[in-house]
């Protein structure tokens, strides 16, 4: 699971208010290189919840992201960090934890399992 996906996932347990973002508990993180695509990054920058990305990256062992997003044009080094954090860090094994309930959603072989139990619906 990459952070671009983590940035969209919510805890969908019934009644939960603080459902985004999910805290990441990482057990195995893998780095996979991905081609740089400025256009795609530009669109994503507008949609990304920045704090969630920074915290998520830290949980995956990457602390280079600035606390605030910068204007894309200005800074090549910022771009590279954004690209790396968003697309190249993979959580292979671990869990996503709801901040309100502590409910853990497992991540196995890179795939998050967001299925709810019947009493959570």
């Amino acid at each position, binding site marked *: 699971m990459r952070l671009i996906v983590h940035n969209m996932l919510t805890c*969908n347990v019934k009644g939960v208010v603080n459902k985004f973002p999910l805290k990441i508990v990482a057990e195995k993180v893998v780095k996979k290189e991905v081609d740089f695509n400025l256009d795609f990054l530009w669109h994503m920058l507008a949609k990304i919840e920045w704090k969630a990305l920074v915290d998520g990256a830290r949980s995956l062992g990457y602390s280079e992201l600035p606390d605030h997003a910068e204007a894309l044009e200005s800074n090549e080094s910022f771009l590279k960090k954004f690209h790396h954090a968003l697309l190249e860090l993979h959580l292979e094994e671990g869990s996503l934890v709801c901040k309100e309930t502590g409910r853990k959603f497992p991540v196995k072989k890179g795939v998050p399992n967001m*299925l709810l139990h019947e009493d959570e619906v």
Partner: protein
Amino acid sequence: MKATLAPSSLISLPRQKASSLRSPSLLINSQRPSSALMTTKTASRGSVAVTAAATSSVEALREGIAEFYNETSGLWEEIWGDHMHHGFYDPDSSVQLSDSGHREAQIRMIEESLRFAGVTEEKKIKRVVDVGCGIGGSSRYIASKFGAECIGITLSPVQAKRANDLAAAQSLSQKVSFQVADALEQPFEDGTFDLVWSMESGEHMPDKAKFVKELVRVAAPGGRIIIVTWCHRNLSQGEESLQPWEQNLLDRICKTFYLPAWCSTSDYVDLLQSLSLQDIKCADWSENVAPFWPAVIRTALTWKGLVSLLRSGMKSIKGALTMPLMIEGYKKGVIKFGIITCQKPL
């Protein structure tokens, strides 16, 4: 939907007279997709408090679907390719599954669906959800076509992993990703997606009203929803339900493929209307997919096909043996292949 039934109270939609309305869990029971439902059968007829039974039968169905696709996905991929949906053909054309023709037809199905819904490059599709994504064929195709980010959800961990691996192999990892999640409880904020895509997955949803509500919830204002699905024929004026022989045919198919009760294309249209969606359109594409099943059967009966089937296990074998029922259902006008599309208001 008829005014007497609020959409949110429906679990399954074959229409019933109010006086003989069976409990929701019994409507699921009549399909009996899993042995877990057998225990609730005698207890729940006529009884009112069946919510617990209904909920656990839904969970049993969900597990059944996940197991079914965990077990059969490899075989389907071998026969159908990475698009686990039907091809779109000109009616009465003859299909050889060994041709590249069937893959072209599967891609044509995606293109015809997008076209029917009025989804073009100009619509600036940036975020797509593929609900019931299989091994991600649609997601990868749509991501490539529009340069969009696609998230796919499936109940099967085997399929999600395979979908991610195929994306990586096609250098699409940054654009598409796949999760295990429930289409009826999607882990996304409201209004996230410009395009909500459900290609041949609606059949598995036990609560059509809830399914449609979730599709609408996660669609962005101005976003499009595309549902391509197997339905039963529309009921005629004054008809309360399908004929018993028709229901019996569907029951036999449901049992094998882990399908809950069927509804009609009109039922989907009614649901969307009740949720104030705009530009609702539907079409009957049964004639355009009919050539596919005999071709699948012919492939299954080849030496290679038989060996693959035997290797894949009982669920696959049962699946193959049930295909003639699909053909029968289509020929007798019970089973329809429909598309329903709409736009969420701004």
